[in-house]
Each structure stands twice: as structure tokens, then as C-alpha cells.
């Protein structure tokens, strides 16, 4: 649906996007991740035809953003960072302006606005000036604006910044619901947001792609191992020996418990097999008792920090 090939964007001597290529398939929700200033917004502006790339090709639904920008713009719904809106217009006037430019015929315009404002939870603020609305409501107006022409592609740039936790959950739910039918690029520097809503993640740093894949793939790619913490009652040395003898275990460390509490065994294990089950079986077979078993996968935070700081360390 969206094809980006070798895109570079220079602003004078600064390179905002550097030879970036990726693809978004139909119906996919892509998380576009990177620290602030990584070039996310610039890339979105290129896809939405706000500015051309210095180099490279961007195609949206088969249309080139340079030669066929009108067709591209018709297909995309866009919510730029921090939802820029006309503060001195009221919500209904604003949405009907967008609907008008988006070419929604006047006889169905009112109906469409009603539908979209219901979906975005805007019923209460329809007649109010956008300038008087809270950040959460403005963000929803921004979202309503991007959905009004029922686009098949949606580009959301930091849709939840500045919202309170309750609002963040609401907006994420909304995005998930919409995401079932649409192709979405979700830009963010907040990890839980991306891992909660996206099928696939692309991480960029300083304008370049550093990784891409599903959240699980990324976690595996960074560090091949998983960590298991188990609290087992029994003789520490014996248990340790048995654990180390297991096939997928690479190493074992013991944190001795105080008094009557059991020791914690920290295992490094390979991804293959079900290490949890194996540990449990070993405990049962040997008549130990287990009071805690926890498997720690590498979190996206680790992946992100690892990937975006690696280069700086190397320098």
C-alpha cells in the first residue's frame, strides 16, 4: 500500500532522512518508532505530499507522491503532530470545511459528520470553539478530521502526546478499532503505545532504519536469550546442577534466600522449547516445590535503547 524506496531528505547541510526504504502492506498497522528528532515527522510529511523528498521514490496505493500527489492526498487521512486545528472555528464548522474539501457531497455531509463525531466521542462539544477544548478533545477532533472521508490509509503522528492516561487508553482503543480495516502508520517515541497497537515496528534513528519486524522478532533479534527466574524450595547445589543439565540452559546464577525463604535461580536460556514447562517438570519429578516462576523476555524498551544508542557508543 505504501512503498518508500531510498528516500533522502536534506534541509541545507542537515540530513533529516537518510536513504530510508520500507513498505507497508494493506491492512497493516506499522509502528514508526524513533527518538525525538529521528526524522519521523519529516518522513510522514513526505508521504502525505506536504514536501517532496530530495531523493528517492514514495508510492501510495500505486500513485507517485510527486507526479500524482492529488490522488495520494485523496487516499490518506493525516493527523499531524499535536493536532494543529483552527482555534477560532467551532467543531461542526471545522469538520464540514474538511468534508467539503475532501469532496463529500453536501447531501451526505451532515450524516457523515454525525457518524464520525459519534465514533470519536465528540457529541458534547459540537458547537464549541476548538480553542476552548481540552487537549484530549482537540486530539479527537484531529482524528475525526483524518477519518471523515473514510480513507484506506491513515497516518497518525504522535496521536497521544499530551493526553492523560485515561484519554491515552481511549485513543488507543479507537486506533485499534479503526486499524481492523485500514492501513495505518503510527509514529511515536512511546513504546507501549506501539507495542499495544501495531503489527509491525520500524525503528529509525538519525534518519536511518535501524530495525524492523514484529515486536517479538525485534526482541529476539537484539538478544537471543531469555531470562527465567525461579524460586525453588530444596537443596540449592542439587537444584542448580539439575537446572544446568537441562538442554536449553546456558547458565545459572543463584541468589540465596534469607532464613526459610527459598533461593532464586536466575537462568539464561535459549529461545527454543518451552523453558518454563521444563523447569516445572524438573521440580515435580524431584519433589521440590516451586513458589515463583517468571520468564522475562527482552522488553521493547531494551530493544529500542539498545538500537538507538548503539551507534553513539560506537563513535
Amino acid at each position: 500500500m505504501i512503498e518508500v524506496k531510498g528516500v533522502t531528505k536534506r534541509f541545507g547541510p542537515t540530513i533529516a532522512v537518510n536513504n530510508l526504504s520500507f513498505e507497508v502492506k494493506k491492512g497493516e498497522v506499522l509502528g514508526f518508532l524513533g527518538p525525538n528528532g529521528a526524522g519521523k515527522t519529516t518522513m510522514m510529511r513526505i508521504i502525505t505530499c506536504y514536501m517532496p523528498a530530495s531523493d528517492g521514490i514514495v508510492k501510495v496505493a500505486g500513485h507517485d507522491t510527486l507526479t500524482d500527489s492529488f490522488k495520494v492526498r485523496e487516499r490518506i487521512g493525516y493527523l499531524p503532530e499535536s493536532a494543529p486545528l483552527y482555534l477560532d472555528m467551532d467543531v461542526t464548522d471545522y469538520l464540514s470545511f474538511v468534508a467539503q474539501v475532501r469532496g463529500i457531497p453536501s447531501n451526505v455531509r451532515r450524516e457523515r459528520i454525525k457518524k464520525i463525531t459519534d465514533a470519536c466521542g465528540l457529541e458534547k462539544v459540537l458547537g464549541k470553539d476548538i480553542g476552548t477544548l481540552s487537549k484530549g478533545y482537540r486530539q479527537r477532533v484531529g482524528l475525526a478530521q483524518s477519518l471523515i472521508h473514510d480513507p484506506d490509509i491513515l497516518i497518525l503522528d504522535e496521536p497521544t502526546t499530551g493526553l492523560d492516561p485515561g484519554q491515552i487508553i481511549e485513543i488507543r482503543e479507537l486506533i485499534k478499532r479503526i486499524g481492523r480495516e485500514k492501513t495505518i502508520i503510527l509514529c511515536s517515541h512511546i513504546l507501549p503505545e506501539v507495542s499495544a497497537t501495531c503489527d509491525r515496528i520500524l525503528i529509525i534513528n538519525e534518519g536511518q532504519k535501524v530495525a524492523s519486524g514484529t515486536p517479538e522478532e525485534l526482541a529476539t533479534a537484539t538478544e537471543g536469550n531469555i531470562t527465567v527466574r525461579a524460586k525453588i524450595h530444596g537443596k540449592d547445589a542439587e537444584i542448580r546442577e539439575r537446572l544446568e543439565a537441562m538442554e536449553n540452559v546456558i547458565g545459572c546464577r543463584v541468589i540465596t534466600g534469607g532464613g526459610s525463604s527459598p533461593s532464586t535461580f536466575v537462568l539464561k536460556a535459549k529461545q527454543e522449547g518451552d523453558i518454563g514447562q521444563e523447569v516445572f517438570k524438573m521440580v515435580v519429578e524431584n519433589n521440590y516445590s516451586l513458589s515463583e516462576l517468571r520468564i522475562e523476555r527482552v522488553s521493547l524498551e531494551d530493544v529500542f535503547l539498545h538500537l538507538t544508542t548503539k551507534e553513539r557508543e560506537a563513535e
Partner: protein
Amino acid sequence: MKNVIAVFQKELRSYFNSPMAYIVIILFVGFANWLFFRSFFMANSASMRMYFSMLPWLFMVFAPLITMRLWAEEKKLNTLELLMTMPLKDWEAVLGKFFSSLFLLVSMLVLSLPLAINVSSLGNMDWGPVIGGYLGAFLMGAAYLSIGLFISSLTQNQIIAAIISFFVCFGLWIVGESIVVFLAPASLVGLLEFIGLGSHFESIGRGVIDSRDLIYYLTVIGFFLYLNVKGVESRKWA
């Protein structure tokens, strides 16, 4: 055309939803009436000449006030990004905005019509120069607006847009004034008189509608609107 109308309506809603439009119109009508009637009775003649001779100066202040927000605000709030990623051509946005500012200008002129009616009731007025005066004021105002609109597209700051627009309008007005022409080298006299906004206004104001003056104003308006389209496009030249 549909998009031009959409932008036009949007700008009008913005103007009239905020106090801006009312303040500008009321101040203009108030000033115009006050300045006119203050010397009208001394002149002791049922003519609007005084009125039309001060309009260029009033418009010089009021036109930049009308246009200053049109692009500068879009840039400041970053709504330009949303506007320009909709299926809308740059020139459609420029024209929509221009017509909305023109609507305000026409409202100002219409609201000063009672003044003409009052004057005509006081004596035997020659309507020719009055109609010419209104036409000239409309064209000159439109030229000021196109200048102001262009300058608004160059900055995020409305105040700066207004001040610079004022100086550009002022400059274009005075280059054709006799004192400047008198001091200029002889080879430039013809050119300066032609470029100056003032000389064209005066001939229309006498009731003489000459196609050269009309073409002059339309050229100025077209030129600045063209520059405006280029100014909006400049976001793409990095």
C-alpha cells in the same frame, strides 16, 4: 472552484467567529465618517472627493489588518500542514483567502454607502465621480489586500506581516506621488508614475474609467497573488 469556495467560507467563519472582523469594520466605518464629516461642512460642497482622497490612507492601515492573519496564523499553528495535505491546490487556497479578505473590504465600502446617501441629500451631488471613486477604492483595496496576503505568507508573525505590508503599500503609493517623481531622474519619471498606485486611483476617482488603469490594478493583484502561490509552494524548496 469548489475548493476556492470551501476555503473562502472557512476564512469568513474564522473572521466572523472572532471579534476581528467586527473590530476592523467598525473602526473603519467610524474613522471614515469622522474624518470625512470633520471637514465636510467647511468645504461647503456636496461632494465625496474628500472621502475618496483619504481612503487610500485608511486602506493602507486596514488592509494589512485584514490580511495579516491569513497565512501567518496557518504557519504559526501549523494548520498549513493539514491544509496542504488535503486534495487542494495551492492556488485554490490563495484565491479562497483572497476573496474572503475582499469580502471584508466590500463590507466596509458598503457600510460607508449611507455616507454617500447623506451627502447627496444635502445638495446636488454628481454621482459619476462617486461611482468611479467606489470602483477605484475597490480596485486599490484589492491590490493592497493581494500585497498583504503575499506578505502574510512569508512570516509566522501577524504583527510583522501587518507592518511590512503597510510599508510596502505605502512605498507603492508614494513612488507615483508628484514629490517623488519630481526628485527622480527624468528617465524614471514615466515608470514611477505608472508603478505608483496613486495616479491610477486619481483618474478613476475623477469618474474617468480608463482600461489602462483597470489593467494596471488587475496586473498588480495578479502579480502578488502569483507571488503568494509561489510563497506557499516555498515549503517544498528545501
